[in-house]
């Protein structure tokens, strides 16, 4: 058993490369999904009906679709629309679009629980439209939604493991190739699991730091 972990250690550059890919994918898609989700959340609460119906339809569709199937659609579907993509960009795009829906729903839910006074005061001070949203509505919203957004980031890290199926060299894919090369399944996959665990603990630490910041500002 110790020997098996030695084999994984000898292949550490492959494993770290996988970890790095998982990290880059997760950070990029979490950030992009949060920004796009904030914009989509504006549509979800729009005053006119049409954008609400479209945004709601998209959000519900994504929330009822398994991520792997959506990733397959993006991976096989975009080339037939004439967009040439390698599997790395296809995976990233799939993660971003999919999680934008979840982030939008999270932010909409958090917004519904916020007191209306700050926004009303903002309007009284002459803020309108996007400026009002960006300066007055969004900052306390992000702090309030922190823990749920953190959970979604963990979900993104875990969803990225599905991308091993479209041969994206992320962490699970690295563990798979080490296992198939040296036949050390336990050591390879346990190492991957521990690294995922550390990533999630890192996200949780970040979330509680944001929570403390929010408490300090209150």
């Amino acid at each position: 058993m110790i020997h098996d972990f030695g084999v994984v250690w000898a292949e550490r550059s492959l494993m770290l490369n996988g970890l790095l890919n998982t990290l880059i994918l997760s950070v990029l898609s979490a950030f992009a999904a949060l920004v796009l989700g904030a914009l989509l959340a504006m549509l979800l609460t729009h005053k006119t009906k049409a954008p609400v119906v479209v945004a709601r339809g998209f959000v519900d569709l994504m929330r009822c679709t398994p991520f792997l199937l959506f990733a397959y659609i993006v991976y096989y579907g975009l080339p037939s629309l004439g967009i040439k993509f390698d599997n790395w960009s296809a995976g990233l795009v799939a993660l971003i679009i999919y999680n934008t829906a979840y982030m939008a729903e999270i932010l909409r839910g958090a917004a519904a629980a916020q007191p209306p006074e700050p926004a009303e005061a903002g309007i009284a001070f002459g803020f309108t439209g996007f400026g009002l949203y960006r300066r007055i509505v969004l900052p306390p919203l992000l702090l309030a939604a922190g823990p749920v957004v953190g959970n979604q980031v963990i979900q993104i890290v875990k969803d990225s493991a599905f991308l091993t199926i479209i041969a994206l060299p992320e962490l699970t894919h690295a563990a798979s190739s080490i296992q198939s090369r040296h036949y050390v399944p336990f050591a390879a996959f346990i190492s991957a699991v521990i690294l995922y665990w550390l990533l999630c603990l890192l996200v949780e630490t970040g979330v509680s730091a944001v929570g403390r910041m929010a408490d300090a500002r209150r």
Partner: protein
Amino acid sequence: MSAADVLAIFNGAVTTLLLSSLGILLGLPLGLAMALIRWSRVPLASQLVAVYVSLLRATPIVTLLLLLFFALPNVGVPIGPISAGILALTMNTSAFNCEVWRASLMDFPKDQLEAAQSVGMRASLRFRRIVFPQIVRSSLPGLINEMSLLIKVTPALAVVGVVDITRAAVRIGAETYEPLPPFFVAIAIYLPIVYALVSLQRWLERRRARLEAPA
């Protein structure tokens, strides 16, 4: 894509539904047992459960499935794709269920327990008559939410060779050189199932809020 192909995907759907139902049925009591271990602070077992839950919640189902499927035969436990799938789904959902059950147990009013104690109820009777009926109600939305999450990760089963919805769709796509239509059929099967669970959860939450609102 022919009618036989659509039928093949529906056959896969039966497998998916069967395996996820088994995972749910096994994961519910397992999660409750682990929540009770943590709630009653059983020494050592409580810490072990805490680590198990934290680890399983952070592990992607694909990675867990590959670990079980390849590593268990390596240590002398023969396991097929179907059993590995059921085991992975159960382990995954039991960890999440444990947290839902535990949150309800933590919220349980202490005075009710003390009242039951004062009329001489033993711990097992107290749990059966007083605690359990109430935490089932308060946990239900969370548990159903977890069920919908479980259904959404079932395509992972295809990775180890279970012919579920996803693998059936991939196979047909490879045969017909048209990968997209079978995936749309697959999503069309998932949609109503997950949507029904999500709607049920929303309805339960609304009903609960209405019942708890001061009259």
